[in-house]
């Protein structure tokens, strides 16, 4: 049981002493790393270390460094030297690295991490063992909790968070300190601290990464919040689809309890706090806070009108503070380093950093963290390394299904909560999907609408029926049956749905439609007027034909699943359009660029 700051320091020093003399091999073992085969790399090192029986080498499995584009990644540290990071490690590469380690001469990192990044939330992700609380303490975990419990009043904590200007990272950007103050001021015999780890946004995975890579930062922040608002119970609502995050959270909670950092009389004070987990069950709308609370109560996750806000009547009608994972992950850094430090990063109205899940057609996909105010150009072309295959950049969708897209005209926008809104998009949870010339914006809008239609809880009519109709119109357009009139209808209907829906899901569902209509009207026009899909995505609007370049190799005829291609060896081939199902197999198979897709 830890009682004082000295106890924390002792653990920290002991851990650092023990590890600083050792060779450390860290393997990124988060979901994405494991998907790429990190587990077999880990096994390889483990076997080798066992075989040579060298207790000077420690093998550590860590969370995600954010370098998804180069998974599996490992980090090697020789005593007294700076750590080196290697990407795309296979067993062969691992063998070479291991040899280098034994000769105590490792080569320089083959991975370059842009200096435009700044890590606060992800400071420990990928660099520590999430299953070892001593490692976390060596990185100052629970020091902020100690400071708060022994040196600060509830009001002082809330004021510090208010002064920092931290805004909620779950999407809305509501000032966190203010939210805490509401929960603090509502007197009740029981209050709750909830962590929203539902992360329903398709294309965002920062919350998963934090929970898998640095679970203690969230536990500690929840306890700090509990102290500030006067609550003794925290609940993490987490998606059941994140088994590894759940596993690591369970381990972290157990270890914190064993050390007395959660439980009764924390740091010898009379503050007590416990944390439990509740599982989501696959419903996007459950990320909305009122729906989330109903789901926690074991009911259908349907939203209700606000007010009352959760801070007044939340879980079991008690004052409840709901924050997002990334929001919590900022808290300990603010307490430890002060609100002035935090304000010095980012922009005036959006201080701090934002984590983005950069994915889609960008070279360096992965998790990045940048100061608010960084431009899209820096994110996509510097950190992201530009577009895959050096194709032309077309758009980037931010804010997920409720967001909008930004085009090359907006590449120099400094990103923060307010500027994104001004440009017709939003921050959302930080999903950032890059699209190139081969993506059809009408199809993308349809894709998002399909998502909302699936995920609408059905409680209110504009969302349940309106979005379905929107989807059908988009389907009509991508099928080549749309008219100019439909484009006006899309706009009208979108605006009605936005105004009339009950919760944030319905209110934002038409955003991808409005934003693509606004910025890619000509692409919509091509679909309805010329019946053409410029990006050649919408199957009903494309046609495959064989040109004079054909040398008659017969490859295309072999792969065609419907026998739509006719032709003799060494003679030009021909496609029967009636039989063609537009699968594109022939197009991909032809090595002579003889098939035209238009």
């Amino acid at each position, binding site marked *: 049981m830890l009682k004082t700051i000295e106890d924390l320091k002792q653990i920290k020093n002991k851990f650092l002493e023990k590890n600083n003399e050792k060779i450390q091999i860290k393997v990124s073992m988060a979901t994405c790393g494991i*998907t790429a085969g990190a587990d077999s790399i880990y096994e390889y090192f483990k076997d080798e270390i066992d075989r040579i029986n060298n207790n000077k080498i420690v093998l550590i499995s860590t969370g995600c460094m954010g370098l998804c584009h180069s998974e599996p990644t490992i980090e090697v540290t020789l005593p007294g030297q700076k750590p080196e990071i290697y990407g795309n490690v296979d067993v062969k590469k691992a063998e070479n690295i291991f040899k280098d380690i034994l000769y105590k001469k490792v080569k320089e990192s083959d991975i370059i991490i842009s200096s435009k990044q700044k890590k606060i939330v992800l400071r420990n992700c990928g660099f520590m063992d999430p299953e070892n609380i001593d490692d976390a303490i060596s990185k100052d975990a629970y020091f902020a909790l100690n400071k708060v419990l022994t040196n600060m009043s509830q009001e002082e904590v809330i004021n510090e968070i208010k002064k920092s200007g931290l805004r909620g990272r779950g999407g809305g950007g509501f000032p966190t300190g203010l939210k805490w103050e509401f929960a603090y001021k509502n007197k009740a015999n029981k209050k709750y601290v909830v962590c929203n780890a539902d992360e329903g946004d398709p294309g*965002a995975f920062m919350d998963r990464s934090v929970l898998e890579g640095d679970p203690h930062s969230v536990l500690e922040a929840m306890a700090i919040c509990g102290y500030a608002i006067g609550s003794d119970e925290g609940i993490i609502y987490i998606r059941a689809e994140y088994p590894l995050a759940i596993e690591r959270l369970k381990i972290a909670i157990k270890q914190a309890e064993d050390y007395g950092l959660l439980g009764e009389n924390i740091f010898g004070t009379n503050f007590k706090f416990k944390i439990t987990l509740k599982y989501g069950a696959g419903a996007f709308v459950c990320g909305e806070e009122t729906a989330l609370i109903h789901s926690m109560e074991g009911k259908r996750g349907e939203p209700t009108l606000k007010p009352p806000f959760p801070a007044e009547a939340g879980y079991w009608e008690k004052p409840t503070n709901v924050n997002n994972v990334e929001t919590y992950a900022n808290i300990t850094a603010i307490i430890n380093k002060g609100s002035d430090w935090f304000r010095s990063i980012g922009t005036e109205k959006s201080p701090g950093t934002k984590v983005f899940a950069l994915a889609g057609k960008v070279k360096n*996909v992965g*998790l990045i963290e940048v100061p608010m105010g960084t431009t899209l150009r820096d994110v996509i072309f510097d950190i992201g390394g530009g577009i895959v295959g050096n194709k032309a950049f077309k758009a980037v969708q931010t804010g997920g299904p409720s967001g909008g897209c930004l085009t090359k005209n907006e590449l120099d926008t400094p990103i923060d909560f307010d500027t994104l809104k001004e440009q017709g998009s939003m921050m959302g949870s930080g999903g950032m999907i890059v699209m190139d010339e081969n993506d059809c914006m009408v199809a993308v809008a349809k894709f998002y609408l399909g998502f909302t239609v699936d995920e609408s809880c059905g409680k209110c009519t504009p969302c349940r029926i309106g979005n379905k109709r929107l989807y059908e119109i988009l389907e009509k357009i991508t099928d080549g049956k749309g008219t100019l009139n439909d484009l006006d209808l899309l706009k009208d209907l979108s605006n009605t749905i936005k105004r009339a829906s009950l919760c944030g899901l319905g209110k934002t569902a038409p955003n991808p439609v409005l934003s693509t209509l606004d910025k890619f009207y000509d692409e919509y026009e091509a679909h309805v007027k010329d019946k053409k899909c410029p990006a050649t995505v919408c199957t009903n609007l494309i046609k495959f034909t064989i040109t004079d370049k054909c040398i008659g190799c017969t490859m295309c005829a072999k792969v065609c699943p419907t026998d739509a291609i006719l032709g003799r060896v060494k003679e030009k081939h021909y496609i029967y359009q009636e039989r063609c199902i537009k699968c594109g197999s022939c197009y991909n198979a032809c090595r002579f660029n003889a098939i035209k897709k238009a």
Partner: protein
Amino acid sequence: MKCTNQVKDSCFRELKDFIDSLETKKGELITVLHKAQEIFGYLPVEVQEFVSEELNIPLSEVYGVISFYSFFTTTPKGEHPISVCMGTACYVNGSEKILDELKRELGIKVGETTQDGKFSLDVLRCVGACGMAPVMLIGKKTYGRVTADEVKNILKEYK
């Protein structure tokens, strides 16, 4: 998962033990359904009735919750349940092609199970491994950066 797809007495006993071990039954319906699905593999009517009785919640409400959440299923999955990620990152990187290929290879539609009970096919929204897009899952194993050509070979591992 020792009780996969079988409605057995021992499974019911295991579920009852779990329910009895809960601190409170209030608000624990979803927790119990998670456990039940872990034990039985799916949630057939018998299991729904059992949960309804044990928790003293009307069957209609139990069913209402099951049908609301996509994670819960009332039909048995295949021995190797396959899910294709249809999140945005996977979608723009071509997960539809993977899905088409799977449908063709297995001869089933989304939501169905093959005749021999070996494979079932589903879609899901974002595994959270978007950096590896497109992603598919077979049982608990995740496959990243999958191309349509690879599908056949991946399936072979399970045949």
